[in-house]
């Protein structure tokens, strides 16, 4: 098993997901998060290794592209595809999900606008996040900047449908947990998003989101298209 390098301290479990375990520890003296894709005993070992290796590389690649495009996301310190491990900087802060309801309105609006800008920049880089919710945004305690985390479902796509799904997922997370502030929050988000992607793309994505929402379960149209 992994040991924390550089400080001799143990790794502490932060979260256990479906696919990976998140650990907190030190890497070369830097406070870090270890994302470890654990082997799945129900998969053939050769297949398991291939899947974990490919996904680890892809996730790291998307995180690096995102940073290059001006999206705040954790610095990557180490990628070991064969072990299924990504080590990244630990962002000291709070999940947006936990603090949004208690922020003053103008502070919340500035923050949401910044998040909209980040989503727009990510899309301009040709990447979609795949799980854009208020649980995947950390607001840094020191400087108050939002950081986008968990690129596990991210992929390369310039499809308006996929971008619409990102925006739709974000809106849905606002509605489910932050219904009191959702209208303001979404307006501020789109304001920032539009500044980066331009008027034309904004309209396309907003129309797509409306369409997705009318469908109920949003993959139905996608399913039909694939037939």
């Amino acid at each position, binding site marked *: 098993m992994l040991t924390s390098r550089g400080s001799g301290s143990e790794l502490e479990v932060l979260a256990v997901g479906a*696919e990976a375990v998140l650990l907190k520890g030190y890497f070369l003296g830097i406070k870090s998060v270890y994302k470890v894709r654990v082997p799945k005993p129900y*998969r*053939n070992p050769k297949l398991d290794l291939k899947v974990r290796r490919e996904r680890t590389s892809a996730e790291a690649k998307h995180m690096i592209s995102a940073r290059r495009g001006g999206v705040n996301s954790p610095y990557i310190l180490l990628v070991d595809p064969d072990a299924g491990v990504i080590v990244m900087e630990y962002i000291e802060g709070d999940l947006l999900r936990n603090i949004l309801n208690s922020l003053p309105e103008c502070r919340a609006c500035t923050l949401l606008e910044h998040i909209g800008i980040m989503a727009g920049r990510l899309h301009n880089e040709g990447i979609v996040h795949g799980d854009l919710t208020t649980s995947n945004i950390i607001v840094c305690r020191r400087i108050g900047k939002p950081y986008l985390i968990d690129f596990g479902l991210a992929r390369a796509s310039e499809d308006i449908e996929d971008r619409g799904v990102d925006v739709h997922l974000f809106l849905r997370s606002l509605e489910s947990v932050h219904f009191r502030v959702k209208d303001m929050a979404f307006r501020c988000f789109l304001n920032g998003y539009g500044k980066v992607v331009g008027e034309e793309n904004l309209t396309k994505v907003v129309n797509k989101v409306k369409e997705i929402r009318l469908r109920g*379960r949003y993959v139905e149209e996608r399913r039909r298209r694939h037939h």
Partner: protein
Amino acid sequence: MKTIVLGVESTAHTFGVGIVKEREIIADTRYRYEPEKGGIHPREAALYFMNIGPSAISEALRSAGISARDLTGVAVALGPGLGPCLRVGATHARAMAAYLNKPLIPVNHAVAHIEVGKLVTNVKDPLIVYLSGGNTLIAAFNEGRYRVFGETLDIALGNFMDTFVREIGLAPPYVVNGVHQLDRCAEKGKELIDLPYVVKGQDVSFSGLLTAALRAVRRGVPIENVCYSVREIAYSAIVEVSERALVHTDKKEVLVVGGVAASKYLKEKFEIMSSSRGVELAIVPPKYAVDNGVMIAWTGLLAFKSGITIEPERAYVRQRWRLDDVDIPWFGQ
């Protein structure tokens, strides 16, 4: 007075008539259309259903030892399924309900698979993995309906397996002694070859795997190894999206329903995953995992007790009737 409901199933290859008296199954008649070659031809299946339909209904009533007049209502699977097949079952059920002046109860085939699975395995609020020839979806009850958390983006698992074995000359028959030809052929395989494993978030996709596997066979890769690789990849992808949905929904039970649920290799993988997550696994036994009339009758009974009926003249078939379009007011009762 006890509620007695007759259910008619005709969504694909099986014309089934089941009768339930409260929780008791009192008739279970099935006629299965077996194509001599190729897959199900909807028109051929429908013609077969028209021939055997009336006698299947009489047979069910006879074996239950009741007269049609004793029925409380008539339930029918109006979808999803193959149009020509659905229409035969709907015509029989509408005619019966109108002639006998009994309520007609609309039933969604996917909901019926889930309800009969809950009835025979006794799970209460599971994550549902529905795998059959025409369906591949992961669902769970939330706010009044079975919500879909993941599904196939292209072809269903069963359809994928059938198409693959047919194209490489191993079928029909697709299933021999309860074992699918894919599982049979894979038993002799040893080596995993490189084929696409596609999981997109909560969803799976099999069309790329099918193309690549057929190409590998044409290239001369030993057929057993291709079968083995296809089985490993397809089943693992299903178990992976199920695990994701399980973590997401926090359910404590997994219920595997549908005709593909019988595979022991799939079961093995589900067992490993469920025990590692500490949840209970229930797999519907083959008898009720495949299409049958009992599941329509049982779901019809639940729906009827919640006041759900339909006028025969409005009982259209719905080939693409989605699971998450159906309200489930009886849940938890």
